[in-house]
């Protein structure tokens, strides 16, 4: 049974429809992310689970218990706030032990629990320090320890890494993942950073304008986005207008610039009809052939390098193709044996028809 179940949740602020008919099930021990641009309702959804927002209708149950009318202080959830909300007038230990105040535990046990929680987040011995003197990364660890010490069924994280610089953020991503596996608690993470969501999550819900667009595993979302919007939001994607037509037993795609290509019969989702269509193609599904000795693995066309962006490990090329106005973006892993191409170089572009993603909208 799902640990958290949301059915038909709606939330309005006056005329503004902040959450639109949210249906979602999150399993025990799952690392789940709510991903979307700012204002998409992901934080409102998280705060509804925490109990800070009361949805107008729908059912929100945690561990089989209906949460209607249950305040945040009586829910089996704890939260790591975006600002971390570390109480500035208390010490680190007082912050971490804050939620234990009413617990019947003997004082010595509480002290031990606080120390253990601090060690778990790598802050052993920091207890007596003043909280306001901590660095951003340390604050975040204190916030984690403070929430986890209460052994909640669900830990809610509201953009916990957005205030950290890039290096520290990448380090905390692995650490959060490790911590989640260690404690086995369900984590729900709110983020606007698709890379972060892909790296950390078991499953991701992508949200736009108050509604959930797709729920899937990171690979599922990346490889099989169910809409052009999701595809564009996650990773980079070339959007190629074209058409699909039935040619006897074959399904054929006509894509200006890339030519015509036969597709497997199950390419079209159920119920979809041939006709004008947009095809998504990830940059890494295409490759530039550097020498004539390399054999193309799929289809290929001739093109010219229009621009390039060198990333160190990768190079992104903008390739101009015959029959297309806008260039397509193609990424190549850099190798010692491979030269980095320059503007104006004539190349041959190979691509895999199986990597095409159909979007019904044009």
């Amino acid at each position: 049974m799902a640990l958290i179940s949301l059915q038909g949740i709606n939330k309005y602020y006056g005329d503004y429809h902040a959450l639109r008919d949210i249906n979602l099930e999150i399993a025990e021990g799952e690392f789940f992310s709510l991903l979307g641009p700012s204002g998409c309702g992901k934080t409102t959804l998280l705060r509804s689970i925490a109990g800070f927002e009361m949805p107008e209708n729908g059912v929100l149950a945690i561990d089989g218990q209906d949460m209607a009318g249950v305040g945040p202080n009586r829910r089996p959830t704890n939260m790591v706030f975006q600002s971390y909300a570390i109480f500035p007038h208390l010490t680190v230990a007082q912050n971490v032990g804050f939620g234990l105040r009413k617990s019947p535990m003997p004082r010595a046990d509480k002290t031990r629990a606080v120390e253990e929680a601090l060690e778990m987040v790598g802050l052993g011995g920091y207890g007596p320090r003043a909280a306001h003197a901590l660095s951003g990364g340390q604050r975040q660890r204190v916030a984690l320890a403070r929430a986890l010490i209460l052994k909640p069924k669900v830990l809610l994280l509201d953009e916990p890494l957005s205030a950290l610089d890039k290096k520290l953020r990448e380090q905390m991503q692995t650490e959060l993942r490790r911590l989640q596996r260690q404690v086995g608690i369900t984590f729900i993470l709110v983020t606007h950073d698709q890379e972060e969501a892909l790296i950390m999550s078991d499953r991701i819900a992508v949200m736009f304008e108050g509604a959930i667009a797709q729920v899937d595993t990171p690979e599922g979302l990346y490889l099989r986005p169910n809409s052009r919007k999701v595809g564009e939001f996650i990773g980079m994607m070339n959007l190629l207008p074209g058409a699909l037509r039935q040619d006897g037993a074959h399904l054929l795609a006509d894509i200006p610039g890339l030519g015509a290509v036969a597709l497997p019969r199950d390419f079209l989702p159920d119920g979809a009809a041939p006709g004008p269509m947009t095809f998504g193609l990830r940059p890494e599904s295409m490759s530039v052939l550097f020498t004539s000795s390399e054999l193309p693995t799929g289809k290929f066309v001739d093109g010219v390098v229009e621009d390039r962006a060198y990333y160190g490990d990768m190079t992104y090329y903008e390739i101009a193709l015959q029959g297309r106005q806008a260039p397509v973006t193609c990424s190549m892993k850099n190798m010692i044996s491979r030269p980095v191409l320059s503007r104006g170089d004539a190349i041959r572009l190979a691509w895999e028809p199986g990597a095409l993603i159909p979007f019904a909208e044009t």
Partner: protein
Amino acid sequence: MTDLRTSGARRGLALISAPLLYAVLLLAAPMAAILAFSFWTQDYLTIDKSFTLTNYREAFTDPIYRELMIRSLKIAGLVTLVTVLLAFPVAYFISFHVPAGRKSLWIFLVTIPFWTSYLIRVFLWKVILGYNGVLNSGLIGLGLIDEPLTVILYNFNAVVITLAHAFAPFAILPIFVSLERIDRSLLEAAQDLGETRLSAFFRVTLPLAMPGVVAASLIVFIPTIGDYVTPRLVGGPGGLMIANMIQTQFLKLNNAPMGATLAVVAMVIVTIIALIFVALNRRYLRGRS
């Protein structure tokens, strides 16, 4: 389910109810009473509660009231002008030339005198400006003058000097705040675009500081026009202001309705001037943007 927003509004109203009730009972109601009184008349020991505009007619025609009103406006206007002009460079200095860590110390130093007894500060000016006062005795002692100066006490000038001193900190604070809000890169941008420091000051700093200057002017003008202590102590007969007449009507002549009328007239005039000032500033700012 409960709507947190309406329950938030309920909590806000519950919290504000005590201070609001206090303000209604001890501010709004008394002001309403003053307004009512201004339409009544004193009939020896009792008050005639029939509606009349007699008091207002008297307030606008009697030369004594008119003289006092005009003098109060003149003094308040002059004090405002002097105070703001003197205060602006200080506020500018603190905002632009004092290191960030020392600003609050400067502001603290400037505000301290404001919080000390107003009565004593005004009284001290009487002691300073008096015929045998500190200034005259000091100047004679230094051999700079032979006879005590008489133009400095018990007249219009003495009131202006004293009030300008008393309200100085009032003017510095709002100007300082508006100067602090100015993004320093705007000035660099202006200089980058070819302005000199001086022209950047007039084309960027000053317009952006205008809201503070307006606030400072109002915050000085409004209380000075109703000041009672300063004219009594250093004004002499030629420096009395409208507040002294209001007090006289209430406590000496026992004519509360006339006092109330003068109070209402003073407030209405102050309000009109304040509104004109704010409106002019709005138009000025809009013209700029």
